[in-house]
């Protein structure tokens, strides 16, 4: 890969992202006028257009972008580490592990922060890490492979198990906790503010940077652990860093938005069709395209039966289910 084609390709994905970011704030159930929103002559508290744009739509779009970016990158990483292109935060049960962690924290009323990180996020991260470790140790064969059938079974099992735990905690929870849990489990980008976005941005970007740093090592691991090792990759260390980092970014966004399914499956696959499997470009391209994709899905969720808004997780699942079936069918043919 050379620098020129690399920047060319990424520029295209960046352009898609910028266009999405510029267009989607203008789409919504109430028409807003940019001229009014940016007008100096109207007092900000009376400026309905500015309020809708800056207090409602923009934070939601930014959160959507971060979430889409994080889930897509995590999907690409899990696929490479497990050498299976059906792996994704949702299919592996990582999202539901994160959900369980978050629900435990909510049920225990742990609303404080620890070293700047909300405890709910930390629990969510631990949940996703636990889930991936469970799936990893359950599925890996003696030869270090991760066969599709067992991988998906383990993912389904993990999903059911964590969902049951969540229901159990939900059943025991009091009324206000129960409301928070339900609201959160539906998965949505609608309850947010700039503080939340500021608190998760560094985690997501740090995670993606770390993954970029080890992207060539991950490429080699995606072709086989033993040959990666013979090319000088410290396999055990890279696996550890990769799993922890991908779980961290998954846990961070899932703690805020709830489990949003299939983004981590659809996006890396689609992007791979255009840029190939080299993670040095697949990571940043999936980040940009994933951000655009989830923001677009959320815009659809906001407007499709306006003025009622539906959780974005419903849209991604409606798109993702058939996509997953298509992938599975294609895989069986080869």
């Amino acid at each position, binding site marked *: 890969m050379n620098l020129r084609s690399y920047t060319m390709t990424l520029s295209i994905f960046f352009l898609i992202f910028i266009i999405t970011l510029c267009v989607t704030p203008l789409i919504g159930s109430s028409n807003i006028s940019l001229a009014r929103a940016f007008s100096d002559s109207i007092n900000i508290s009376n400026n309905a257009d500015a309020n809708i744009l800056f207090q409602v739509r923009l934070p939601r779009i930014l959160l959507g972008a971060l979430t889409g970016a994080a889930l897509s990158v995590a999907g690409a990483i899990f696929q490479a580490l497990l050498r299976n292109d059906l792996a994704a935060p949702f299919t592996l049960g990582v999202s539901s592990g994160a959900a369980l962690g978050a629900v435990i924290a909510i049920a225990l009323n742990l609303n404080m922060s620890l070293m700047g990180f909300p405890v709910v996020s930390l629990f969510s991260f631990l949940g996703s890490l636990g889930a991936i470790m469970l799936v990893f140790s359950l599925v890996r064969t003696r030869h270090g492979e991760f066969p599709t059938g067992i991988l998906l079974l383990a993912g389904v099992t993990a999903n059911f198990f964590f969902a049951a735990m969540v229901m159990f905690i939900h059943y025991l929870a009091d009324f206000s906790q129960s409301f928070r849990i339900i609201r959160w489990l539906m998965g949505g980008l609608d309850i947010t503010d700039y503080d939340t976005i500021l608190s998760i941005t560094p985690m997501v970007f740090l995670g993606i940077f770390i993954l970029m740093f080890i992207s060539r090592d991950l490429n080699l691991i995606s072709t086989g652990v033993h040959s990666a090792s*013979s090319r000088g990759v410290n396999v055990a260390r890279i696996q550890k860093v990769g799993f922890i980092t991908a779980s961290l970014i998954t846990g961070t966004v899932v703690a805020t938005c709830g489990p949003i399914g299939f983004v981590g499956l659809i996006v890396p696959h689609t992007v791979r069709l255009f840029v190939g499997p080299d993670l040095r470009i697949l990571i940043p391209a999936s980040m940009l395209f994933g951000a655009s994709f989830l923001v677009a899905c959320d815009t659809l969720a906001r407007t499709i039966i306006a003025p009622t808004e539906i959780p974005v997780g419903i849209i991604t699942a409606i798109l993702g289910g058939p996509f997953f079936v298509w992938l599975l069918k294609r895989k069986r043919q080869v």
Partner: protein
Amino acid sequence: MTLMKLENISFTYETEPVLRDLSLSIQEQDFIGLIGPNGSGKSTLLKIMGAIMKPDSGSVRFKESPVAKINKKLFAQSVSWIPQDHPMVFPFKVSEIVLMGRHPYLSPLSFESEEDFEITRRAMETTMTSQFADRYFNEISGGEKQRVMIASALAQRPEMMLLDEPTAALDLKYQIQILNILKNLNTAHNMTLIMAMHDLNLAASFCNRLILLDEGQIVRDGTPEQVLEKDILERVYGIEIDLDAKDGNIRVHPVIEN
């Protein structure tokens, strides 16, 4: 000169011992055929020599330094390993696979330089793989894949190459093609080669040294003439064997009862 020295190597998978107190030294420009029945420890021995697995006990030294203490990337600049088969989940192109051989020379977040491209280009010429550089690895034939993997290993610029049954599952033409490429690397490029091999006759005609393994121990180590002896082979493989020599080459024939 001694390139690699293994002393008292033992290795156990779960409860089953695979290598038992095995010692061996590899000289520069050796072309070694590692032979022995299935499960005799050939693949494991290659992985231990390639620092892919650590022995339970014993020491491996590369040019006097203990392998366990050598930086992994530095070691990969001297020793490369090629697996028996190459399952590839993702659609990498042949050229990308070969470029991966440059990994030990690259730092994180960097791109391959002109020099890296030049080295991979030459590696592909040596292995006659240049013509499918832009094809997908999964779409080429088994023999072509094996040559691509050799090109990728060559891109590591190693002094020593370890190959796990490089001709398994290939037709006769490809077997000879691969072995000729290896022979050429050995004689023209001074490459030290160690390959696990099931075909005793091909091993005898291409290698200058054979090592016969059985149940994790070296039974015989020497020239093909020294190693391929009737009673030893019959004992190790548990079948009746006939030997003959043609043009100075030993031929092994299993006796088939009709």
